């Protein structure tokens, strides 16, 4: 689910960039915020960071004693992407293996659908392997699948989310 969130952030302006004032300073703060936002990529609580939409406020700068930098507390609005257990979503198959398939959904590449969670689907090996049920519904690379999220995991080191998904439920499976 894409979310519009309002978040606090601390932007640090190094001492040697502090000779600008007013609008120039504001511009500096915005540029740094956008860069840090892009580098951060994702957090456990808010999911993936997509874009900053508005800068709501810039607080009073506080000098950091050790370094002489100035810290500006800002509040901004932005778009994030986060998935929830129990959420129903659509994604695209990227890889088919004997025990299940990998899907991508939004910025997330690592959604795993185990064959145990694909009721009545059987594996067909080959150069372009796929799963199929007896109603001729096919799950192969590039197919769109509607699924339910059964678990999520935040990977601190890679700053990424992984998820386990399932087709157990009505209207879940390949979407024509």
């Amino acid at each position, binding site marked *: *689910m*894409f*979310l*519009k*969130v309002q978040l606090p952030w601390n932007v640090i302006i190094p001492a040697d960039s502090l000779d600008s004032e007013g609008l120039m300073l504001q511009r500096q703060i915005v540029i740094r915020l956008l860069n840090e936002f*892009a580098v951060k*990529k*994702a957090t456990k609580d808010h999911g*993936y*960071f*997509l*874009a900053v*939409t508005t800068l709501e406020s810039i607080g009073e700068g506080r000098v950091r004693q050790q370094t002489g930098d100035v810290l500006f507390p800002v509040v901004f609005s932005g*778009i994030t*992407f*986060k998935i*929830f*257990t*129990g*959420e*129903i979503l*659509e994604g*695209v198959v990227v890889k088919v293996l004997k025990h299940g398939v990998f899907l*991508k*959904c*939004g*910025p997330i*590449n690592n959604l795993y659908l*185990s064959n145990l969670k694909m009721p009545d689907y059987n594996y067909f090996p080959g150069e372009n392997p796929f799963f199929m049920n007896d109603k001729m519904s096919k799950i192969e690379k590039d197919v769109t699948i*509607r699924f*339910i*999220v*059964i*678990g*999520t*995991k*935040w990977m601190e080191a890679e700053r990424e989310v*992984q998820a*386990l998904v399932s087709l157990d*439920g*009505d*209207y*879940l499976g390949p979407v024509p």
Partner: protein
Amino acid sequence: MSQTIGANAFREEEENAAELKIGDEFLKAKCLMNCEVAILLEHRCEQLRHVSEDAMNQVPQVFEKSLQYVKRFSRFSNQEAVKQVREVLSRYGLTEFELSVLGNFCPENAAEAIAAVPTLKTKGRGLDEETIQKLLDELAMIKKFQL
């Protein structure tokens, strides 16, 4: 003593979107439909192109992948239609989350809508199948007549 990995290694869930248990801050956060995000991200691309021709080559992967995704999974393409969709859905007393899921899938019938958003029926809010179908018909109209 072996530990079963797999589902157990994933976070134990009090979280459950099927019951709208997704945390207070997310229930209150504004949810965006794919089509709304597409408009916002396209707008950002426009701004970047004004900065430099090369700017699009430098956008983060998260942005790039999300843009691809929302373009592929948007049911409504123009701003006016998107506005109407939100207006229509807002009249039915849905939460932001429920509204966005319905706007993303545009279910054809009440059964499909309830499968995608189980809380429609579990909360006893006067959303019987007839009302849900009426909502879906309104969405279908907008989709049919969007430019």
